[in-house]
């Protein structure tokens, strides 16, 4: 249950760091739910692709 | 014009440099004080909770 509290707090912090809500997702999937796992991964992949790569400026002295 | 540079200025808090331009007679034509530092407190304090102000702004000057 710590994860259930950690992830929303982390997302709030990540939003402040310019990392969009759609890039982090929390789901609960059991080992026997193979189809569900696959569909979640596919959805997430599409979502992240739509968001695109991080805008330049990923550290280093001048981005 | 001949330029005399004093860099850094010393025995005070902060960074500064002085450029002195001398004319052909060796007299001072003009002198410029420049402050080659900025940290941006005016901007990064925005969005911080009010209780952070007494924790952040003393770090403007530790003297």
């Amino acid at each position: 249950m710590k994860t259930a509290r950690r992830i929303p707090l982390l997302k709030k912090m990540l939003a402040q760091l310019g990392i969009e809500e759609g890039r982090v997702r929390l789901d609960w999937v059991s080992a026997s739910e193979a189809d569900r796992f696959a569909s979640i991964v596919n959805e997430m992949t599409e979502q992240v692709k739509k968001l695109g790569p991080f805008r330049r400026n990923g550290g280093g002295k001048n981005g | 014009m001949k330029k005399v540079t004093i860099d850094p200025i010393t025995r005070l808090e902060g960074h500064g440099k002085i450029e002195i331009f001398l004319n052909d007679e060796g007299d001072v034509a003009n002198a410029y004080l420049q402050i080659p530092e900025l940290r941006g407190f005016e901007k990064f304090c925005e969005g911080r909770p009010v209780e952070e102000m007494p924790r952040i702004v003393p770090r403007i000057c530790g003297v």
Partner: protein
Amino acid sequence: MAKPKVALYWAAACGGCDVAVLDTNEKILDIANIADIVFWPIALDFKYHHVEAMEDKSIDLCLFNGAIRSSEQEKIAKLLRNKSKVMVAFGACACFGGIPALGNLTNRAEIFQRVYIEAPSNANADGTVPQTSTKVTEGELELPEFFDTVSTLAQVVDVEYFVPGCPPPVDIILKVVNAFATDQLPPVGSVIASDKTLCDECDRVKEQKKITKLYRPHEIIPDPKKCLLEQGVICCGPATRGGCGLRCIKANMPCRGCFGPPPKVADQGAALVSVIASIYQGNTEEEIARMVEEVVDPAGTFYRFALADSMLKRKRMPPTEGRL
């Protein structure tokens, strides 16, 4: 035998680390007796050209405080690195970015806009902002480039030792000076503080870390004997290196994290997210939402002193276009 040579310098700093060295009071005379201070802008008149004229590695110890956020600060860090045998990242700014690293939540464009254009006390109708090169009647003036991003000293040059703290406590400063004077410096790469967390070293009464509310300072007067986290006050102790003597705790204020992450913790902010999420009791959506709301500013609170040292280092945003 010639006395060893010591240099002190400040980059994006406040002067507090230099004052901390002066806070050694009469012991500063001992320091002056055992070493020649060859560069120290707050106290002595040596200029950059004096340092440039020194032979490489002729400075025995360089205490460098302040973060790196301009081309001049980077240049002098590299210059002093060349001229020094031992480079010490002195203070929270040089070690982790410090308070100036909160600038990594913004960038040059936004900072310049606020400082030089928007700020209410400005009288800058022309909208002048600093340029790296400015022509004046007599010639040309130069200013360093202001980077979008704040870096720690170790991200720019090799560093042998780290002395954390904002500022480092006097007893740690004296420990460093003594170790240097008696040739008993610890292994290279050491952080000269405790290897435990502040939480481990805190002597407040700890019972059960279970809370149902987080309090902001105006909402509570904490009991000075009990653990602050257990009273619902955000204290960075569990994810902060110890060795500071609990100076904030003793003032009944929570730890702000100025000694940086403890050993084995790669990212202080992420560790603090875990700390708060672990002790907060609540599993329903409402309880979790309440907790998230009660942490008003996670990035600023959990990365207060160590944003430049974190895994993400800075906020992802478009870089400022072009050179100045």
